[in-house]
């Protein structure tokens, strides 16, 4: 069958199935199982009201349980077993972890990931804050915001191509077509660099891509927060003779500190999952490996499910503090 037709059919089956399930199960409940008529009308209405929420939420619970919760436990199980032929597996304790810790590539990935975790959220938030503050003060601010926000819509792969062109290198005797090398030579560089192969610094050239994408997100959230600051506090500061910088750093920033933390943690999570950029631009060569790409290489190139799952658990471990913090905040808010 043609994929487009198959897609159309899936939409019909999927959507029809969902609607049919919700409609049918509610009808079943109201008309057959607990009809609100007859001698037990009151009891039946109460019963229906107890059951109904579960009808509404059941598909979501199934999907979430199967596609997100179960894999966490299964991945943990895989990380402490070894795959044997014929689909069997053997418990090996922490052997996979031990093997992973003995690999240089893993430590390289971990070190790089920590570097990413420091640099990307910090730069994105800083640029986002700068863009938000500046664009709120000029008349063409909305256009500026749109442009800075735009990379959010571009795929990591698309961004990788865009930036590969910026980093492109041609032999010295030719015209440079990469903007970075052209600038470098213009400002007195002696010969063009292949930027993505310079160890350590190439990490930063990859990080810039993510900063470029995430700044728009930070800007949008922080801009809304900045506008939410009560005007009295700023008026008071102006009357007291504060200058623009003092107003910004001592009045505005402290009042949006909570939002800054939210932006920071959200970007942190995105950084932990970053895969496409490294995969497309260097695939972890020249000391640019990161955990997510290391994991992918282990799982699907080396076909080593044990070590791959172990490295996935490391990513999970790094996410966990943020997970707990988020859940606690959400619960606090609900009370």
């Amino acid at each position, binding site marked *: 069958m043609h*994929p487009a037709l198959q897609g159309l059919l899936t939409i019909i089956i999927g959507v029809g199935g969902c609607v049919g399930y919700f409609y049918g199960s509610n009808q079943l409940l109201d008309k057959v199982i607990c009809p609100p008529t007859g001698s037990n009308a009151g009891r039946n209405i109460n019963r229906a009201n107890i059951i*109904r929420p579960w009808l509404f939420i059941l598909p979501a619970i199934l999907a979430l349980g199967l596609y997100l919760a*179960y894999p966490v436990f299964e991945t943990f199980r895989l990380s402490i077993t070894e795959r044997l032929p014929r689909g069997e597996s053997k418990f090996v304790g922490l052997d996979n972890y031990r093997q992973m810790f003995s690999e240089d590539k893993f430590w390289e990935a971990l070190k790089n990931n920590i570097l990413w975790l420091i640099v990307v959220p910090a730069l994105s938030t800083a640029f986002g804050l700068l863009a938000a503050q500046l664009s709120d003060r000029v008349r063409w601010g909305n256009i500026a915001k749109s442009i*800075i926000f735009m990379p959010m819509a571009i795929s990591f792969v698309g961004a990788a191509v865009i930036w590969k062109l910026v980093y492109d290198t041609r032999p010295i005797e030719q015209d440079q077509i990469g903007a970075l090398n052209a600038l470098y030579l213009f400002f007195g560089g002696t010969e063009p660099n292949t930027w993505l192969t310079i160890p350590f610094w190439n990490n930063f050239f990859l990080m810039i891509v993510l900063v470029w994408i995430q700044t728009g997100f930070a800007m949008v*959230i922080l801009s809304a927060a900045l506008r939410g600051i009560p005007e009295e506090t700023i008026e008071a500061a102006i009357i007291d003779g504060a200058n*623009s910088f003092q107003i910004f750093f001592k009045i505005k920033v402290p009042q949006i500190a909570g939002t800054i933390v939210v932006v920071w943690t959200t970007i942190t999570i995105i950084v932990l*999952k970053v895969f*496409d950029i490294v995969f497309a631009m260097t695939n972890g060569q020249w000391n640019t490996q990161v955990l997510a790409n290391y994991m992918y290489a282990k799982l699907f190139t080396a076909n080593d499910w044990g070590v791959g799952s172990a490295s996935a658990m490391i990513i999970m471990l790094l996410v966990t503090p943020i997970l707990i913090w988020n859940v606690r905040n959400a619960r606090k808010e609900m009370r």
Partner: protein
Amino acid sequence: MSNIAGTKSSLTWAVHLSLAALVLLWLFPTAGLLISSFRTADQISTSGWWKSLVSSEQNQTLRTAPGSEQIELDGKFFVEGNLFEGQKEAMISAWGTSSKAIADYKPGDVAILKKGGTVTVAANGDYRLENTEALKGKRGIRIFTTATRPPEFTISNYGHVLFEESASDSMAKAFFNTMTVTIPATIIPILIAAFAAYALAWMDFPGRALMIAAVVGLLVVPLQLALIPLLKFHNQIGIGKGYVGVWLAHTGFGLPMAIYLLRNYMVGLPRDIIENARVDGATEFQIFNKIIIPLSFPALASFAIFQFLWTWNDLLVSLVFLIDSSGETTVMTKRIVEMLGTRGGNWEILATSAFVSIAVPLLVFFSMQKYLVRGLLAGSVK
């Protein structure tokens, strides 16, 4: 805000300038790719894209027609023609007949050739060779020119990438595959999430708070953990790698965000409307259909855009759950990554392909930006 009471900040100019710098910096890389996609392979590899916007000055070595095309007139031999034959027009500012002195003559000057005879070149490239003896040699005389060319763009790259039949280059198929992945993967989670979000927002049942907490928790679980277990699961139930698998996976991964966003929005709907409806005897299903869904349209739109962008731009999920060894179901992101590997130098193909895949999200972005911003504001965990 800081300009109250007519105190115009002295920093206004600094603000304008720094914002302009920031905007240009952010626009520059994308502009480079977009412009490159409208240039020919030769142009891309010989000069930076920023030079294509203005008339560029180029040095070229060209040849006159060979001696076999000479005309004899009154005992003299002539060869006439245009140096730029078969090329785009250009304006010559200087020329020469030796590689050591490529700019000795102005257009219209007459140069005396070493082999005897004279040559003259006009600004538009017309030349005239003159000699008293017959010209020999199979090849013409070399002329070194310095010429300015006007900007020149082409859409042939797009034709090549989209309509060329050869399977290795065709983005058209990948485009439709991406679409096939994206549309069901956007619609199905919305439906499931809307019902769940309504239950979590407006129905009372034991374990509700726990479930909301679970959704917030699952929001940050990296999907990397799900790859192997789910691939195993898909193989066990017999759907293997394919569209069904990728649709299910996207649905599962998109749900926490969908439920969280929609629940946050629905909780904010006015209590009166819902309770009045209940008092009037509406069933929960009717309330959901006739009140909640229409009122939640902005939140539904926000999530739809998110999920669309996310599934359209996705690489990892498609790599794992969709693309098998036959390559028939490849998506655009995967094609581009392959091209980066095998045709890293073919910028005209790469740039054009990348732009084909970027165009749709950008269109969605610019037309529905309002909803995207709203969704971001509601979706970031406070």
